């Protein structure tokens, strides 16, 4: 099911890159997005993907709010937490999780453990609060 999502993503990037909506160009784009290699591993259900896309859309305003918060109230302390995620997620969903966490400026993932945990580096306002 999410194979379609993959093809739609490739087609969108092709159309943005060429900025040409003629029938021939769309046909070329579809052919290219089918030809490019894709994996046949388990890629998760459609619901997981919709949730992940929703998280990305929510991450953009959150990121700006955190940035403004960091500007007006300096965050000087830093610490490391481990965030748990359910194991056996597909590699695409892991990529999106890391993307969402790293995109918000207060948190950066810097290590991924195979048994389902991300090591997250955070900045905070003051120590041990």
């Amino acid at each position, binding site marked *: 099911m999410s194979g379609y999502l993959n093809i739609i993503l490739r087609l969108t990037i092709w159309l*943005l890159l060429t*900025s040409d909506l003629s029938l021939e160009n769309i046909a070329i784009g579809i052919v290219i997005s089918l030809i490019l290699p894709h994996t046949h591993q388990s890629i998760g259900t459609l619901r997981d993907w919709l949730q992940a896309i929703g998280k990305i859309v929510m991450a953009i305003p959150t990121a700006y709010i955190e940035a403004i918060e960091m*500007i007006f109230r300096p*965050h000087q302390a*830093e610490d490391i937490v481990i965030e748990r995620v359910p194991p056996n997620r597909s590699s695409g969903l892991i990529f999106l999780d890391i*993307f969402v966490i790293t*995109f918000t400026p207060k948190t*950066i993932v810097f*290590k991924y453990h195979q048994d389902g945990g991300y090591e997250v580096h955070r900045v905070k306002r003051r120590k041990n609060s």
Partner: protein
Amino acid sequence: MIDMLSYFCIGGGIIFWFWGTLPLLGKRSVLFKLHSLSVSDTLGSMAIVFGLLLKLPSEWQLLILAIISLAIWNTMLGYVLAYCASSQEDL
């Protein structure tokens, strides 16, 4: 009105740039500097491109592509730099 909004976005983006780049001169850890760089280089640049997009909507395809590649590549670069720099410090 739209002109004002676009200048607001570009100005805000430049403020983000200066705020996030100045910590580079200080003596903090690489990871702390990465946090402020992700404010300036990802969010500030996205705000600037969005301001340009409001100014000239006729070439939206290229600017949308620029926003997408900014978001994805800068975030992944942040993760890769954090991963490589931290595993080096452990040794």
